[in-house]
């Protein structure tokens, strides 16, 4: 069958790459052109055969940004955390002002600056955190001491049992040896 001059447009039509107007034109052309209709059908068969090879599932997940390799840089983390440090910066600035100026101005800062409140809150929060850390440490220490004590008691009991068993064996051996000795003594006397 002779190839139609609209061969390339036909392929554009197949892949839905024609503007609406040209698409309608091609549909009209296809109604009257047997060569293009056959060609289109063959191309459709070819592409559908290609699609019999489906996508495969990924054997393992791709590392997400929450994974270590994707962790933001130090600078990015610093930028992201800036708002959190804003209050701290305000209190630091207030302290700086307090150090660089005489008492009346310090008083003014204490009276007016919201940074002092932040500083107080910060101190309280730090104290609370220290108290909590100490309490946690005490619990950990107590648990460790208790465990060590229990272990020591277990080992002591096991040693006592072992000693007791050894003593029993020893006593049995002494008993046997005594019996043997008592059996041998009359024979010796009889022989003399």
């Amino acid at each position, binding site marked *: 069958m002779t190839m139609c001059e609209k061969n390339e447009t036909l392929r554009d039509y197949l892949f839905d790459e024609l503007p609406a107007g040209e698409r309608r034109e091609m549909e009209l052309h296809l109604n009257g052109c047997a060569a293009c209709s056959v060609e289109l059908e063959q191309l459709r068969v070819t592409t559908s*055969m290609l699609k019999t090879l489906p996508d495969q599932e990924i054997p393992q997940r791709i590392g997400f940004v929450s994974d270590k390799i994707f962790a933001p840089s130090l600078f990015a983390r610093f930028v992201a955390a800036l708002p959190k440090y804003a209050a701290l910066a305000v209190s630091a600035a207030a302290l700086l002002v307090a150090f660089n100026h005489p008492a009346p101005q310090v008083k003014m800062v204490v009276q007016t600056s919201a940074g002092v409140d932040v500083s107080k809150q910060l101190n309280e929060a730090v104290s609370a955190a220290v108290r909590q850390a100490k309490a946690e440490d005490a619990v950990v220490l107590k648990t460790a001491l208790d465990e060590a004590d229990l272990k020591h008691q277990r080992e002591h009991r096991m040693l006592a049992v072992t000693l007791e068993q050894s003593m029993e064996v020893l006593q049995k051996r002494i008993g046997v040896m005594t019996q043997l000795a008592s059996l041998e003594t009359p024979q010796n006397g009889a022989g003399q």
Partner: protein
Amino acid sequence: MIFRAVEDADLIVRVRKGDVEAFNHLVSRWEKRVYNYLLRLTGKTEDSLDLTQDVFLKAWQNIRKLDDTARFGPWLFRIAHNEAYSLFRKRKPDASTDDADYTEREAAPGASPELTLSVNAALNRLNPEQREAVVLKVYQGFKFDEMAEILGCPVSTIKSRLYTALDLMKTELAPVAGRGGR
């Protein structure tokens, strides 16, 4: 597709504000497509996995450089294309994918083994540029202008590669189609 593009654009805006979860969402949306594109390019599972990982790492690092958020797909595949060819260049100076092995690819349920073998063989006989054009158009469904962006060449070149490949495959697969291998 429009809703998807809108959602991707929205996610990208959030990623640019430092929203890690939004990027995770983008990864889970695109990882299978990127992996399969690279698998069809390299023919090797391990290489495709490593490359996919690298592609998303690069995307995360460079997402601020993406000019048009609606073009995330082609931009991501451009990275994938560059990563794949960078690997080929490291392994072979002439940057070829000729050693790719497609014979192990599984067929869709119901497809005959003969058809699977024939399609794999036909894909193997294409040159790397033709094969990539087929992968991007037939398997990934990109438009010509998007393919031009991914491959960094004019639409006319892409059409030429694709249509030549299609003609070759039509001839190659005609006997199988005639035997009802479809």
